[in-house]
């Protein structure tokens, strides 16, 4: 009961936070505006969302230490890609890489593939650079840099946490099948983007 109360307390805080953020969305240019833009940028792109969540779920399938290492490493690598995008360093086939990440990660979850940690880290790292680069390139020039950076990292991190949360269901047999089904859906979404249906 106590845990349930805590859960709803946290949920209320999260909802209040999100709603408050939305209310501030057009209050002018400044740190708050930059934060809102950065926060929503990774969340409002379905191709980005499925990949971020897929990283968390696949980390859970891989077990420890991958489930913890991926969320530690991913923001750093993604920010590196974002920095390349901001300063204008070109990376080829970024959109294909983003769509491909959803397809590949979705299939890895669907078939519950267990890769060595270094293979998983390299694969996810490459995808992270594509996603970060796209965010860095697409960013509006009118937003506050500090606010945008903080919002962007927090938004991305929360998506990972959602993926890891879903990944915890893999501890039960039914949950494992549900997570694998989610992997199938992610693969379909990735394929839709990759082949131009979305």
């Amino acid at each position, binding site marked *: 009961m106590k845990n349930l109360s805590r859960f709803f307390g946290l949920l209320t805080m999260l909802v209040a936070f999100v709603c408050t953020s939305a209310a501030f969305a057009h209050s002018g240019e400044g740190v708050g505006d930059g934060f809102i833009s950065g926060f929503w940028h990774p969340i409002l792109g379905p191709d980005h969302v499925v990949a971020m969540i897929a990283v968390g779920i696949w980390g859970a399938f891989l077990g420890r230490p991958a489930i913890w290492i991926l969320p530690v490493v991913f923001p750093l690598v993604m920010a590196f890609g974002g*920095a390349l995008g901001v*300063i204008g360093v070109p990376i080829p086939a970024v959109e294909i890489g983003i769509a491909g990440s959803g397809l590949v990660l979705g299939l890895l979850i669907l078939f519950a593939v267990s890769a060595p940690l270094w293979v998983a880290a390299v694969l996810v790292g490459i995808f992270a650079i594509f996603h970060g680069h796209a965010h860095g390139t697409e960013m*509006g*020039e009118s937003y506050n*840099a*500090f606010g945008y950076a903080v919002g962007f990292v927090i938004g991305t991190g929360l998506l990972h946490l959602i993926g890891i949360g879903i990944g915890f269901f893999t501890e039960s047999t039914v949950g494992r099948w549900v997570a694998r089904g989610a992997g199938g859906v992610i693969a379909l979404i990735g394929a839709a983007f990759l082949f131009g249906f979305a």
Partner: protein
Amino acid sequence: MAAGRVEAHAFESGADQYAQFSEGVSVIFTYPSTILPLMALGILLSLWHAEGMVKAWPVFLAGQVIGLFAAAFVGVWILNVMLAVGVLLGALAALLPKHTQTEAFVLAAFTGVVSLSLSLEGHGLFELPIFIYAGILFGTNIAVACAAGLARYAMERYTADWMRIVWRVAGSWIAAMLMLIFAFNLTAG
């Protein structure tokens, strides 16, 4: 994107000593490019050792004293140095499972030098009222101590592995934020 370039602080608080002190403190707490690297240092020190802040404090203070003298000789480029130091601190806190005393001491000393140089950028020694210096020194040390203390408390209160990971993730997020700010700053020229 127009990154908020930190220029030499004007320090216009007048003769009121409390206002001078507050202005000094605000230089640390209102600039993400200053506060985030200091927080990363605090986290790294507590990840190194439960008493990491206390052990590294003398060298951190020594670095700040050097920074007081060095501030007169730095230009706006010191902001990029501080951002790079912050990225390094956050990345090391996130990626290294264990830390050494040498690493902690070197980073604490260097962060002290760069932090004070940035906060007083271009101002000669004792060119400003003494209470501004006091505010900057207080803000610098309290920022690191608060981050280190919070991390230490959390890791002692919850001794499970995941709590250490939480602070490594915090380091990773700080490094990621500073890396983006660094890129924005470079493009802003």
